[in-house]
């Protein structure tokens, strides 16, 4: 990967950033820039976010194949991208959306360059500025070609005869092999679709959210019983595998809502701890109540 291709990509992103005013697009482009800059800083850590991961793959391909960011050959790019995607564990839906997103971002240039030429504005000036962008906005009166071009230069294809022949045996058999393979794929797809329809029927999102609410409530009650300070999550489990899964998912939910903190000191198999984050007095802790009652009770 050459540094000039990285510069090209960064410059390209900056160029688009300079052109837009919607805040939503701004955020997107900032995200792309941040990702692209990790290449410059050499901090290549595989992102956890599936979208970032897929994005990183795009940049990887663009940079390692020296694509011109102004002119991505989408046919070869998509082909490479899909091949790479199959090798990595990338969410297919995200990746599919991303191919589309990358396409629309990178294809914008034609309209925008046109519009920019009409307006003749000095669009931006930054460290990322480079020749190609300057060229794009060069004044119209600068002659582009020294060459003189006759008005009606016209090319027309050579016309040749194309004989036709019947299909040969081998061709028929090859076709049959391919048809059989296609039908097998279609059959497998139909089966999966059927299975998904069946599981969709079982799945009722309302039941699911009601279940989750109940689970979280139950786990919260268990947490409350454990009192203040760090708690080993083993203390919250009481039952078999299913209970552990229910508890763990509820803990993730509570952590996401900011009610508890979850951490693990020794990766990857160490003990997981948690701690209640909300002010202590909100909780109705049975142990605390019990302690208070114990205080009030006459000393035997």
């Amino acid at each position, binding site marked *: 990967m050459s540094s000039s291709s990285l510069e090209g990509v960064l410059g390209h992103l900056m160029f688009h950033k300079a052109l837009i005013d919607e805040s939503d697009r701004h955020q997107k482009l900032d995200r792309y820039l941040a990702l692209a800059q990790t290449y410059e800083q050499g901090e290549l850590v595989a992102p956890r976010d599936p979208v970032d991961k897929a994005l990183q793959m795009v940049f990887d391909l663009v940079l390692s194949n020296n694509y011109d960011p102004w002119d991505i050959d989408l046919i070869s790019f998509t082909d490479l991208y899909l091949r790479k995607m199959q090798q990595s564990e990338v969410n297919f839906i995200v990746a599919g959306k991303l191919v589309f997103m990358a396409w629309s971002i990178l294809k914008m240039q034609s309209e925008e360059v046109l519009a920019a030429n009409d307006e003749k504005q000095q669009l931006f000036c930054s460290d990322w500025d480079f020749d190609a962008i300057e060229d794009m906005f060069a004044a119209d009166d600068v002659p582009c070609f020294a060459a003189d071009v006759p008005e009606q230069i016209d090319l027309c294809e050579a016309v040749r*005869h194309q004989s036709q022949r019947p*299909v040969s045996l081998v061709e028929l058999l090859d076709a049959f092999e391919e048809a059989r393979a296609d039908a097998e794929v279609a059959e497998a797809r139909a089966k999966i679709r059927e299975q998904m329809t069946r599981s969709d029927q079982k799945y009722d999102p309302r039941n699911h959210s009601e279940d989750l609410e109940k689970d979280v409530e139950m786990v919260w009650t268990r947490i409350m019983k454990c009192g203040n300070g760090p708690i080993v999550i083993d203390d919250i489990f009481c039952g078999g595998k299913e209970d552990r899964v229910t508890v763990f998912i509820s803990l993730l939910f509570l952590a996401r809502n900011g009610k508890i903190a979850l951490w693990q000191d020794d990766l990857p198999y160490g003990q997981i701890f948690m701690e209640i984050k909300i002010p202590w007095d909100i909780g109705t802790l049975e142990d605390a109540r019990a302690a208070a009652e114990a205080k009030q009770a006459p000393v035997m």
Partner: protein
Amino acid sequence: MDEPLRAIESVLFASSRPLRMAEIESATQLSPDIIRRAIVRLKKQYDDVGSSVEVVKIGVRYSMQLRKQYSNYGMPFAEVELPKDALKTAAFIAYNQPVLQSELAKSLGSEVYEHIKILRSANLITAKRSAHTFLLTTSKHFAEYFGIASSKKEDIKKWMDEQTKKQ
């Protein structure tokens, strides 16, 4: 220079399929009468020099093609007259016949409708109405076309199995 003759030669040379009079008319802007007479002269010219190319009338269509004794030379450079995808569909029908058109579309995708149209016009399959769809089988011409000794469906299937094993 015989302009009508050259215009017609150009049109017939460029086309890979035989052309109807109306097509030649619209491409050359000549009258049918002039076209007919020019074609006779064109044919004679190719015959007289003993060319491997001949000008022929096939049914109501006109064509420039290789004479039978030279057609083998041209084979390696000729293009297959059926699109590859349509051929795939033909093979599938041959192996699984009789096949319902609707079932075929479920197995191979909706593009089979286009293929069926091509295969029917090439006379390679026959379609019989069956409820809301068609029941597809190979035609007699299918066996002739591929040089299969029998046109019975069991024989075609057997033959395909044998050939696949041979490959």
